[in-house]
């Protein structure tokens, strides 16, 4: 199979995957106890009021009709072109467009994911390589211990410790939210405050938005780095034992060239795959980090919507998450296929 055929096949396979995911969520949400109609009425509600709300929410139709309506909305190209996101329906709780809600929260999540991943990758790979190079030494044990602790520590606990130290005691950094209220948000171009501040040429806003981003991304980055440390170390240990590394050393190449130029490059492939998949998962929202730092991203959104049995919002969120994960997996698969032709066989 040629690379092009492989890519087309993989893209086509994402359609039934997403459809299956959507159908499952559509059904599971409706099986769960709880009624989005009654949740609109904290106190009394007459049967007529309930029926009126049922009509407003489109729940007066049979289940199959609701399903067909939903799928019909999803493939509405006109809507997609007009709004820039698919028609995911209206929220059953707030009556806002679900697509609009998801895309309004997405930049916050994306920004957090990018910075966390950078921190996690740098810490994880550097410490992993150092650990593998000093195999079984005290340094190796220390780094492994660090990796285990950061991987195991609850994210909200680490977040709160940082908040206490840097927010409450030192007062260097804010304890949460995306920006100091004394500073106006930068003009929205990408929705990433740090990038938008730079594009606006406003260093002060960049400084302020970076300050707000530092603690959540450091928390999340440290937690993820534990996994990266362990994986880098294991892969490096295996690679360092291979013949080509011995040969490179025998030829008198510098230690750093052998480690970073030869061994790490070979050990990096599975790590890059993991970074890609972790990044895709993070795009779905780091629920605990976002909650701990009151970060207005997708993680909080999903939790809120589930509590309200907001069927359309949850379906929309799952479709988007599915899409993120599928896209990143696709890119990783294509890269793999490009790098290693055996996969295409």
């Amino acid at each position: 199979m040629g690379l092009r055929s492989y890519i087309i096949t993989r893209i086509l396979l994402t359609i039934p995957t997403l459809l299956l995911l959507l159908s499952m969520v559509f059904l599971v949400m409706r099986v769960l106890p709880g009624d989005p109609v009654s949740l609109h009425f904290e106190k009394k509600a007459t049967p007529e009021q309930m029926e009126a709300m049922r009509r407003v929410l489109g729940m007066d139709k049979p289940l199959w009709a609701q399903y067909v309506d939903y799928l019909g909305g999803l493939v509405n190209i006109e809507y997609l072109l007009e709004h820039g996101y698919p028609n995911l329906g209206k929220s059953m709780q707030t009556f806002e467009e679900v697509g609009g809600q998801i895309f309004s929260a997405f930049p916050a999540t994306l920004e957090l994911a990018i910075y966390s991943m950078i921190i996690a990758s740098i810490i994880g790979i550097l410490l992993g390589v150092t650990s593998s190079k000093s195999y079984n030494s005290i340094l190796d044990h220390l780094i492994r211990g660090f990796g285990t602790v950061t991987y195991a520590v609850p994210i909200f606990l680490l977040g709160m410790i940082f908040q206490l130290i840097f927010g409450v005691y030192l007062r260097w950094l804010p304890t949460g939210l995306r920006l100091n209220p004394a500073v106006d948000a930068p003009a929205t171009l990408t929705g990433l405050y740090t990038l938008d501040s730079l594009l606006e040429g406003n260093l002060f806003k960049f400084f302020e938005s970076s300050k707000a981003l530092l603690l959540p991304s450091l928390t999340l980055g440290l937690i993820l780095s534990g996994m990266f440390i362990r994986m880098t170390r294991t892969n490096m240990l295996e690679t360092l034992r291979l013949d080509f590394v011995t040969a490179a050393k025998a030829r008198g190449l510098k230690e750093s060239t052998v480690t970073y130029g030869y061994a790490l490059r070979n050990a990096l492939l599975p790590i890059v795959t993991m970074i890609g998949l972790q990044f895709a998962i993070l795009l779905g929202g780091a629920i605990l980090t976002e909650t701990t730092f009151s970060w207005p991203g997708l993680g909080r959104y999903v939790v809120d919507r589930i509590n309200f049995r907001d069927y359309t919002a949850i379906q929309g969120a799952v479709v988007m998450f599915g899409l993120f994960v599928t896209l990143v997996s696709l890119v990783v698969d294509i890269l793999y296929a490009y790098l290693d032709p055996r996969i295409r066989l």
Partner: protein
Amino acid sequence: MPEKMETAIVVLVLIGIIVSSGTMVYTTSVMSGVSSTQSDVSTLADSMTNLTSSVGDLASIMADLAETVGEYADTIAALEASLASLRAALTKMTLAEKTLIVGTTDSVELTLDPAQAYDYFGWSILQQIAGTLVEVKPGSETGLDYLPALAVSWNASEDLDVWDFNLRQGVIFWDGTEFNATHVKYSFDRAIELIPSIPEGAPAGLGYDSIINSTEVLDTYKVRFHLNDPFSPFLGIASCRASAIVNPEYAPIAQVNYTAGDPRASTPVAFVGPYFLSEWKRVAGRDIEIKLDANPFYWNATGEPAKTEHVIFRFYSDAPTLRLAVEAGDVDMAFRHISPTDVLDLEGKPNVKVWWGTGAFIQYLCFQCAHEPFNDTRVRRAVTAALDRPTVCSTVFLNLSEPLYSLIPPGMLGHTEAFQKLGDANYTLTKSLLAEVGYNEANKLKFDLWYESSGHYPMSAEQALVYKQAFEASGVMDVTLVSRDWAAYKKARDDEIMDVYVYGWYPDYVDPDDYSFLYWASWIHTNYYNETLNGLPNPSYSAYLQQVVFFDEARSTTNTTLRDQLYAQIDDIAVEQCSVVPIYVSTAWAVTKPDVFGIVLDITQDMRYWLIYIGE
């Protein structure tokens, strides 16, 4: 002849030589000139080339210079922008005393349209930006001390079904429209007209359409309400946020499109409150930032203007993060919700100040009267007698709530201690009552106690555990705890599958009228109010009817002594019936920086931000 020919030839040759020489000389001369000219041209061309090269170099240098200057200009512009921003931020910081930053875990649920909003925080924001006919006096202990607001005086007919309000003159909306009686009529007509299309809105929930028959404009500054029935708490209705007066220009009577941040609700010109809404940002259905600015056209701007020019709300995800924010100084004030543990921990710390006030939120135990054996009042009373309110208040709420022995909270008209008759952890009474129905240590009363587990009510799981322990300590009850998140819990309530369950209530207006009816509220689904239960006559039905008679009588009089007696009589019946049993009433608190003043936490649960200021 030949000589002549020779001479001629010689002459010709000479001429030829001369001509040739001349030509050659001339040619040479010309050629020399041309050569010289060529040399000159070449020199000139070289010079020109050099010049062009020099000009090119110069242009390049100039371009480089211009680029460099441009870069410097961009850098300078960027620096200037940063400095301007820094200056603006510094200005804002130096004006900090004019800005109050409030942290909260709340969020506006849907809109700020009084015809639709029906949530605590939505109403709280509406209170800052909108005006009502009357207001409750800040600090009121009973919640019944009404002050003139957009109405300067009022009176009711003897039978309390006609209410007249004389309106304040000289009140203007932001757009210059002068407030008058037509606006009052319009606001109430609109609220009622929108009920069918906004079934979840406050006017629908409060039953405006069943209370108000019509609104009549008597003259420019006088309005009359014709009610369907006598209704003594009408001032309570007139003071609540669903009765906010709107500017017809910005609040048309139309089908509501359910969009949060609807311009009709968020426009600064729609209302006449002490503040106007200058910014309202929402992301993914939750508030991100709300900013209020003092309204320069506020009718009471000269009397009691907003003491703080700007109020900014910041939204935190939960109680622990809000506590950290106030402790770190990220916000000037934290209100709703900091947990009891945190607030007690914060009290006494030098960098914060804790404010305490009266609470009006209550929780109560409900019995499903259609489930055997809870159709028997003796069983309901037996379980009630085993309740241990003081332990719940001390262990779960760390004494930040008070045991409640009537659905009407202390301080309010009609409050009694009626349920004291059954006592707390009164196991002797529990055993004797259950023995009458056949339950004892060998044959325990078994039932499910349901509670909400998603944080809709405070400390629900901890409460449920204490209730279970207290019930089982009687030795004659075996309790199974069952929890559901709020959505499933409400469904279980509506499906009437819960034996015994815990519920809660926030008042819409501070009047016993908005509490006492809970004993038989149909939406709680106890079935206590039904004539029959499972096809058999309901033994409690006559008691329910009697309670309703007292309730209606209390609605039709403004005589506080009489109303007090009537609510007490309702409570007396409630103790015998135990359909709904009061457990506790909350305390209210706020945490601020030490230099924040002016907070009033009274029984209304209203936070009047226009009275708050930062000072020495």
